[in-house]
């Protein structure tokens, strides 16, 4: 049975429907990441779970108990805010102990709990300081300590890393992941950063304009995006979207790319049903599925080699991103770092069709 159930949650503010019927289940110990562009309703949904913003309709169920009408403090949840929301007038110790104090836990037990959490997060030396005397990363840790000390049923994180600099973000991200692995806590995490979503989640929910676009594991979301929006939103650099048309080629179906009958690739294995000849489709290929011929996975079953003009070369150190251009359309390929290629040259790109997905441009959905 799922531990956290979000049942048909709708939220209207004024005349605008922010959430349009959200249904999500999460098992105990799961790490759910709500991801989407700003304004997609992910923070509103998190506030509804927390009880800070009551939904217009629908139910929130935690561990079999309907909590929709319960006060936030009665839901047995803890939340880490984007601004950390540490009480400025209290020391770190008092901040962490505040929730316990409000619950009437006696002083000795409070001190023991604070000590325990401080040890876990390695902030023991900071306990007597005030939030204003801490760095961003330290504040972040105190905010997590404040949530941890209560041992709640569900942890809620509202974009907790967005106020940190890039290096610290990666460190704290790893710490959150380790924390989840060690405590087996149930976590709901909001972010607009798709890399955070991929690295942390056991389950990702992609939201757009108040509707769920796709629910799945990080690998499902990444490799088999449900529609063009998810395909484009997840992954950096973005997935290549190549326009094509279905053609028959010697009994089997194939795709003519770039509107050029001479550039043909086989129908990717992800498509099982037969499509009408002449149907316009969009072929989605991650940059790592287009490489130089040397980097190609030897296990690959379906591959096409296409020669195209090189219009840009971007070395990143570990790989080199090469932008290819053919018949006015361009695509990004991820090649070996030491590949010999220069702008203006013709270069043979290997298209790994095992990893390709096909979308319908009319419905924007994936074709299976």
């Amino acid at each position, binding site marked *: 049975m799922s531990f956290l159930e979000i049942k048909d949650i709708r939220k209207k503010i004024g005349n605008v429907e922010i959430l349009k019927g959200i249904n999500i289940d999460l098992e105990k110990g799961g790490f759910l990441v709500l991801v989407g562009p700003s304004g997609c309703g992910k923070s509103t949904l998190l506030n509804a779970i*927390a*009880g*800070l913003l009551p939904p217009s309709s629908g139910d929130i169920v935690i561990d079999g108990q309907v909590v929709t009408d319960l*006060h*936030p*403090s009665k839901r047995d*949840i*803890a*939340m880490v*805010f*984007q*601004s950390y*929301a540490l*009480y*400025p*007038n209290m020391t770190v110790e008092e901040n962490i102990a*505040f*929730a316990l104090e*409000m*619950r009437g836990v006696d002083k000795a037990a409070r001190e023991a709990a604070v000590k325990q959490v401080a040890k876990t997060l390695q902030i023991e030396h900071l306990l007597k300081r005030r939030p204003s005397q801490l760095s961003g990363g330290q504040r972040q840790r105190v905010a997590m300590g*404040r949530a941890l000390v209560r041992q709640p049923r569900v942890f809620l994180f509202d974009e907790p890393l967005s106020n940190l600099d890039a290096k610290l973000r990666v460190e704290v991200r790893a710490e959150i992941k380790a924390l989840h692995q060690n405590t087996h806590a149930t976590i709901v995490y909001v972010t607009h950063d798709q890399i955070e979503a991929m690295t942390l989640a056991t389950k990702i929910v992609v939201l757009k304009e108040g509707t769920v676009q796709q629910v799945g594991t990080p690998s499902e979301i990444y490799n088999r995006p449900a529609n063009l929006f998810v395909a484009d939103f997840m992954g950096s650099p973005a997935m290549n979207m190549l326009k094509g048309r279905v053609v028959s080629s010697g009994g089997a179906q194939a795709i003519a790319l770039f509107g050029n009958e001479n550039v043909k690739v086989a129908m990717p294995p992800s498509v099982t049903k037969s499509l009408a000849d002449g149907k316009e489709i969009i072929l989605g290929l991650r940059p790592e599925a287009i490489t130089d011929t040397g980097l190609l996975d030897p296990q690959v079953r379906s591959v096409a080699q296409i020669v195209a003009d090189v219009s840009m070369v971007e070395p990143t150190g570990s790989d080199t991103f090469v932008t290819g251009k053919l018949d006015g359309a361009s695509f990004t390929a991820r090649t070996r770092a030491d590949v010999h290629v220069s702008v203006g040259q013709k270069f043979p790109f290997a298209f790994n069709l095992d990893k390709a997905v096909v979308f319908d441009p009319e419905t924007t959905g994936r074709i299976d």
Partner: protein
Amino acid sequence: MSAANETISAGSARTARYFIYAALIILAVVYLLPLYVMLTTSLKPLDEIRGGDMLALPREPSIAAWVRAWGEACIGVSCVGIKGYFWNSIKMVVPAVIISTLLGALNGYVLTKWRFPGHKIVFGMMLFACFIPFQAVLIPMARLLGLMGLSNSTTGLVMVHVIYGLGFTTLFFRNYYEAFPDELVKAAMIDGAGFFRIFWRILLPSSGPIIVVTIIYQFTNIWNDFLFGVSFAGGEASPMTVALNNLVSSSTGVKEYNVDMAAAVFAALPTLFVYIVAGRYFVRGLMAGAVKG
């Protein structure tokens, strides 16, 4: 013709600075002159004052006039000095300042963190209270105090000042709490703190600067108020300002300028004290909302 392109020589910059300092010193002297006259006159015996040189230092300084003003001077028909009225003012100003500040803080808290439909209208109406002239409320207020049995009492005066001050204190605290992060209130709610607990434990302890501003503002206003004092609390219940006026205008024989001046200094001391103790927070508090990005 732009000023930025003109080069200013070191010499002319120095001249300008001398000029600025000279002007500032002259203005400071002009402002301090009345205080100087008050203090010197209060320390002079009467015949020295009659000599006519207001600016002269006292030849035989004595605090006799101060003692007289505090404990012996005649106000109306009773000759017991101003000390009773001084305590009247203290008894009026302390509760009035505390109550109006606390209520203002509570109002500001509700108007920013527990918004209800129509909160803007309520706040607008409270702001409006700041602009009602004192004179306009005299008669309705007198009637109200009469009905409540609070005429001619310090309690009544406290109530009047609390009501009149509420508009200002609410304005101060609302603007301060507007910049106070909502997330802190949400975090405290999740932690299990209720309405008053959040106010006492989270908001109020973080409101130091605005509390100081409000206290200074309310203290000086209420202490210096004359109109409400003279209208709603006569005789024995008069505050200091009213007593001072009565002392100065009581004419029993010789006009004792030194006693009048000493009494006036007594009347000014508490506000002076508040400014000196808390003044540096005043500017800081006023600037806090303005500068913070």
